[in-house]
């Protein structure tokens, strides 16, 4: 009988060093001893999604300037994380996004106009979570990670092989809820993936001020949860590492904490001025590691992507963005203010009914004016 020592158990939980990478910043491929490179078709699909994701992200930023969106937290630079995480999972696996996961949600198949609904100020969550197995985008940091544990544990109790993936950033790993969530996931062996996009800044605060840990993935060991590190600008590595974690979770192997190294190329939102806390030279080094350019170079060099396909993907991206633009500028159907009272409780209290009557009367009076 083999005896596992505490040291052996602990080392089995430690993340890869360096982070898992298949395609480097020059577009060159490397093998990995533990993980498998995704199939050529998966990488082509990922590239198509990257082209669409980047274009929609740029369109959204333009919509802010046109006054169509109240605010937009750009995904630029982090598309490989967002797209890879969705492509690695089944459409019935649950996603628990933050506010910066627009591209992930679009990749899941949510209508981009619905994704942007919250940022447009229309309704808090513009899509039907159950239809897409995607929870509402959440702004209180890390609070949704524990919901992912509950959803996953519920599936496990019913013997379903659903996985839940919780998105969070480097800053959110400092929040108490992250620690409670990963601890619960470890104890209940819940099929959850904690996917940290370490983009090195929580708005303006650099990673060194969030943690003294060797890496964010090392935080898993304290909870008996395996940690892993991945090059977050290499979509092949992201897909591979998340697929592996999902397979393990489905097989009853419990949660994984994955830290993806990436960079937010734009400011926190359009309301932020990133020049106050980071230097242009740093931004440029990450520009050279761009996730879209990198995969393109690899696919072109390896002969998997030709001009015809490129044009086809570009057309697809154009069509999606044109549709978003057209529908925004044509004006979206407004939600009636009377609906403000419709979803507070299943059955409104007498006090809510009375306030709803007041608003209805005000609206009627406005209508008569």
């Amino acid at each position, binding site marked *: 009988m083999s005896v596992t020592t505490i040291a052996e158990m602990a080392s089995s939980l430690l993340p890869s060093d360096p982070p898992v990478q298949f395609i480097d910043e020059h577009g060159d491929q490397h093998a990995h001893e533990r993980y498998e490179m995704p199939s050529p078709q998966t990488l082509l699909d990922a590239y198509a999604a990257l082209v669409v994701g980047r274009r929609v992200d740029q369109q959204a930023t333009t919509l802010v300037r046109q006054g169509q969106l109240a605010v937009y937290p750009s995904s630029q630079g982090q598309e490989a994380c967002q797209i890879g995480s969705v492509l690695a999972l089944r459409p019935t696996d649950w996603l628990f996004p933050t506010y910066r996961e627009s591209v992930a949600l679009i990749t899941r198949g949510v209508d981009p106009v619905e994704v942007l609904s919250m940022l447009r100020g229309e309704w808090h969550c513009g899509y039907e979570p159950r239809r897409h197995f995607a929870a509402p985008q959440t702004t*209180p940091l890390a609070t949704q990670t*524990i919901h992912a544990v*509950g959803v*996953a544990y519920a599936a496990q109790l019913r013997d379903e092989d659903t996985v839940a993936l919780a998105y969070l950033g480097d800053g959110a790993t400092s929040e108490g809820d992250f620690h409670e969530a990963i*601890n619960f996931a470890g104890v209940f062996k819940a099929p959850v993936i904690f996917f940290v996009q370490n983009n090195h800044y929580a708005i303006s605060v650099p990673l060194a001020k969030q943690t003294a840990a060797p890496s964010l993935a090392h935080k898993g060991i304290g909870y008996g949860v395996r940690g892993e590190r991945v090059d977050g600008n290499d979509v092949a590595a992201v897909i591979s590492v998340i697929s592996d974690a999902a397979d393990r979770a489905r097989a009853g192997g419990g949660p994984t904490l994955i830290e993806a190294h990436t960079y937010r190329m734009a400011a926190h939102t359009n309301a932020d001025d990133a020049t106050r806390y980071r230097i242009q030279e740093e931004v440029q080094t990450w520009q050279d590691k761009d996730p879209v350019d990198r995969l393109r170079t690899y696919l072109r060099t390896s002969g998997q992507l030709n001009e015809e396909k490129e044009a086809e993907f570009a057309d697809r991206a154009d069509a999606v963005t044109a549709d978003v633009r057209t529908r925004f500028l044509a004006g979206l159907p407004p939600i009636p203010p009377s*609906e403000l009272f419709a*979803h507070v409780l*299943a059955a409104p*209290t*007498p006090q809510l009914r009375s306030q709803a009557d007041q608003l209805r009367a005000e609206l009627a009076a406005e209508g008569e004016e």
Partner: protein
Amino acid sequence: MATTTMSEALNQALQDCLAEDDRVVVFGEDVGPLGGVFRVTDGLTAKFGEERCFDTPLAESGIVGMAIGMAMNGFRPVVEMQFDAFGLPAFDQVVSHAAKYRNRTRGTISLPLVIRVPTNGGIGGLEHHCDSSEAYYAHTPGLIVVAPSTVEDAYTLLRDSVALDDPVIFLEPKHLYWSKTDQELPRQGDPIGQAAVRRSGRDVSLITYGSSVPLALEAADAAVEEGWDVEVIDLRSLVPLDEATVTASVRKTGRAVVLAEAPGFASVASEIAARIGEECFHSLLAPVRRVTGFNIPYPPPKLENNYLPSVDRVLDAVADLQWEDS
């Protein structure tokens, strides 16, 4: 004669919910083999198994957050915050998520979950074990807040709470856990949102809930000697609030005292007093009085009687209702 305590009635309610609906799960700190520090979950793990009633890590935000996730995915969790003040680490999950999920998702996701909160003082408890936190919850749109005061209500209101499709804060007055009834537990009681007239009276409406109901009844009995016939109203739930029963009573009596153990400033008692003022102004023979806890941190056990509302304080408030003018 067989008697049932409130703790046993709550336990029976959970047993019946677990037996009738596979989707009901019970979890929290020490609720498993120990049966909860107040024994409300006694025997549930043994009877229904560890998948239906289980202990969690010691983390309240995690407990409520996990309940939210499970409620999103087909279960009807009933969780315990071991003591009122220990529910505060979960406050963000309650306010930002449990209360708002239905609204955020435009009605497509409702969260059928019950958060049981042993509440109030009067048990000689140490600090952080005797808080009255109902105002925080009642103030938060999207929550149902239930406050039983009798053994029978503890049973039927908990069952009704588990059946609701909205998050419920279920306030269990700690000092009433061992209160008893010799009646058989009713299969069904008045619904959530309906107040009960515990004692009818002609002269004053004494409106209260939860832990203070026995005190109100005691004060009403004592008031007889002073010549006042006090009507005692037990709200039973704070959200929904049964304003109709309150205002009908005050219109009849013309005088009102609101009684609650929580600090009075910006409290549920204040809300009720304000509503009586708005709705019953022309029936009132005197200003509405409140008898509440002071706005001080809950006192140490040896001083709690200086804090808690008493029969004398209630009678003083009643005496102050301008009887000389009528």
